[in-house]
């Protein structure tokens, strides 16, 4: 008999303080990463403080660790926030579906991330960047409320320096600092200004619900992306991640099993329950 709710212990290899309240934690199990696919998620916990659901934010091709990013807000994340490198973290997963990269081969891709929603985007994006030759032009648009809210600042340079890759970073109006060199404007607004076309392209979008809503609209109506080619991930409250506990469903879809990755076309068929 196997207890599907039993976590494994992962070791914290590295902790990166991304912003004042967000961190990225890199983990290993038996000294290496685990097998997962971009877009999947896991249940992370400091035993005694409860589990939290996070998507992986690293590329599955980087075998030396797997990572996730989180914002400290509740009991579980406060617990995880207090951990140090070398400490143990309980982990279950990977769960859920994933970004089907085979459908992206040879196509132009635009990655759109907002705030901490960049985390799952980063996973698929780095996956693509790691196999750069398989894809066409890659555009990365990343926005956050303020400069201080941008995650992954330490690897912006790395993203920028891939060939045939454009990296645009923006902050909401009012969120810029005097020495800010990126763009200023809401993600959907900046997205519209990018030289993109809908044909033979895929858009991967994740961020706060309101951003997703408007980004999807922009991509579809103004830039000519078809609904099948816009992919996003849903974040619903979960407990088990295994399709049992019954709280993450949107209509007949269990986000933890049938999701979290959905195309805009699939989302359209779902009731407004997310």
């Amino acid at each position, binding site marked *: 008999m196997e207890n599907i709710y039993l976590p494994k212990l992962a070791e914290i290899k590295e902790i990166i303080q991304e912003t004042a309240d967000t961190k990225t934690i890199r983990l290993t199990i038996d000294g290496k990463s685990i097998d997962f696919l971009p877009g999947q998620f896991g249940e992370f916990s400091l035993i005694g403080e409860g589990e939290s659901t996070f998507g992986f934010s690293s590329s599955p091709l980087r075998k030396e660790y797997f990572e996730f990013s989180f914002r400290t807000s*509740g*009991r579980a994340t406060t617990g995880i926030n207090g951990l140090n490198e070398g400490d143990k973290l309980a982990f279950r997963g990977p769960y859920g579906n994933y970004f089907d990269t085979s459908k992206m081969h040879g196509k132009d891709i635009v990655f759109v991330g907002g705030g901490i929603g960049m985390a799952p985007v980063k996973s698929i994006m780095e996956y693509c960047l790691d196999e750069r030759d398989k894809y066409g032009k890659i555009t990365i648009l990343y926005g956050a409320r303020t400069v201080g809210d941008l995650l992954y600042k330490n690897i912006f340079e790395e993203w920028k320096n891939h060939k045939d890759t454009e990296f645009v970073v923006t902050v909401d109006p009012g969120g810029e600092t005097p020495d800010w060199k990126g763009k200023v404007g809401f993600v959907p607004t900046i997205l519209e200004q990018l030289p993109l076309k809908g044909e033979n392209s895929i858009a991967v979008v994740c961020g706060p619900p309101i951003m997703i809503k408007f980004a999807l609209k922009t991509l579809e109506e103004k830039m000519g992306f078809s609904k099948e080619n816009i992919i996003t991930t849903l974040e619903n409250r979960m407990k088990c991640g295994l399709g049992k506990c019954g709280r993450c469903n949107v209509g007949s879809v269990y986000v933890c099993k049938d999701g979290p990755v959905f195309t805009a076309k699939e989302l359209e068929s779902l009731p407004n329950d997310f």
Partner: protein
Amino acid sequence: MANTKTDEKLQKIAKDLLESGEVNLIIGYTKGSNPQRMRPVFITKPEEVEKLSFSHNAVQDLAVFLKKQEVKKYGKIGITVKGCDEKAVNSLIQEYQLSRDNIKIIGMQCNGVIKQNLADKGETKVSETTVYDKCLICQEHTPVLYDFLIETEEPELSLSGNVKPYADIEKLDELSTEEKNAYWAKEFDKCIKCYACRQACPLCFCSRCIVEKNMPQWIDTNSEEPGNAQWNMIRAYHLSGRCIGCGECERACPVNIPLMLINEKMARDVYNLFGYKSGLDINAKPVFGVFSENDFNDFIK
């Protein structure tokens, strides 16, 4: 069943209130899923007032809806209340959860409501053995505060004195600590932590209940001892001096924990200690909002 005179009066008042625009919503009772049941109904249009009805099966405390966001957004509300329920309205006003200006109270004179489990089995007669214990000690058959009063057609509840309401309180008081503990351990063991007692209570209006706070986790989440005991104790404490004794918690409880034995005991204690009964005066300060320099001090060294 034809409309009774009570129903007609009620419908007339409701119609006038809605037509004149004095209220946007009437919360009342209507006939329920069987002839012995009534259920809440929400009337917004004058032509729908015929649904309104009242009888000795109107067990629900409609004041519970006054804490609901979906109901609050109607603004000015008319509510049908029995004497006990009306005290909940008063308490909500006392605790600034409700403005007197926004509420029209249609007071129903009531001589007791039949226990729902008996009514479901076919009981139709109001008597001291068929009504809730709260009705036997009721001092407010006529609500203490109302904008309209509808007099009852029911005969007065005759009390022989043989039925002792909440008799178990006295019995419990006489037990030893261990026996009391054994009694409550058995009762709380049944608890399934559905929190129906909280949801059914008109005065449990916290937007975030203590059981939902987990930094730290004040109340253990398990449905075993001692998590159940912690919950039941804190629920009872938070309602001490506030509970108006409508008994909705006990009625809602799916596992029949005698919650009213605790609530009533605390109400008596508060009255003995501070001479305060809740829900009787909208201008009174809640008992724990004030103090007296001469308060009971014997238990403190």
